[in-house]
């Protein structure tokens, strides 16, 4: 990609031809599906939160963790029974962006690699897909926390 200007005219003309025939991704339809399914997952999350608030001793603040854990538990079942990849093909980002998508990335990697054993298979490969999310989540939190603390210390904000 970086060598775009080095490409020969033959390659460039081929890529034009290729683009002409390439099936376009149905953006509008995909976005609508992502909206509906993604929204639905969040709605289910809200229902679970409300359930925990009303029937257990959780506040809005503390109900977040059990809600996420419950959603990931449901994801485990959907992934294990081979449903999540099918819903994912339909919903795209609608199932990838909620925490259920994160859970699915971890859980699907874990069960995929069980044939290679629990330490070298499951253990090493579990975070193969979700690793970058954790890595850059933590790192960006560190950087932002640092910047914010300095700004506050300097009397800004």
């Amino acid at each position, binding site marked *: 990609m970086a060598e775009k200007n080095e490409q020969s005219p033959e390659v460039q003309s081929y890529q034009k031809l290729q683009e002409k025939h390439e099936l376009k991704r149905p953006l509008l339809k995909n976005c609508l599906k992502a*909206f509906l399914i*993604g*929204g639905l997952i969040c709605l289910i999350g809200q229902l679970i939160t409300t359930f925990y608030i009303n029937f257990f001793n959780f506040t809005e603040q503390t109900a977040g963790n059990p809600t996420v854990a419950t959603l990931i538990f449901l994801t485990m079942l959907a992934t294990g029974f081979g449903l999540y990849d099918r819903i994912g093909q339909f919903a795209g*980002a609608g199932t990838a962006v909620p925490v259920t998508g994160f*859970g699915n990335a971890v859980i699907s990697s*874990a*069960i995929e690699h069980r044939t290679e054993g629990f330490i070298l298979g499951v253990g090493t490969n579990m975070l193969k897909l979700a690793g970058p999310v954790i890595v850059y989540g933590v790192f960006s939190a560190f950087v932002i*926390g640092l910047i914010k603390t300095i700004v506050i210390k300097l009397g800004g904000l």
Partner: protein
Amino acid sequence: MIFLWAFIVGGIICVIGQIMFDVFKLTPAHTLTSLVVLGAILDGVGLYEPLIDFAGAGATVPITSFGNSLVHGAMEEAQQHGIIGVLTGIFEVTSAGISAAIVFGVIAAIIFKPKG
């Protein structure tokens, strides 16, 4: 009301993800990583908490909330111990999502095998 807004806000965040998939042709890993960093930045400038107040699970369920809760954890320590707190805070921060995914991942590996 909160249910409606959870649906709408959650849906919109997913649409942003879908656009990153389809228009910018990012892989899921790139997309999710960008969204987590986005969540962290939004919390850094103080916009994510109001969004949670407004949309409830619509803001806590999407992956962006990882960034939010990580920054929150770091900031809490920082308020007590200053700049050192950011460093020590970041080690104490855990997100329920990460722990839950790992625990259920191992359980799933014991119970299930891929359907193919």
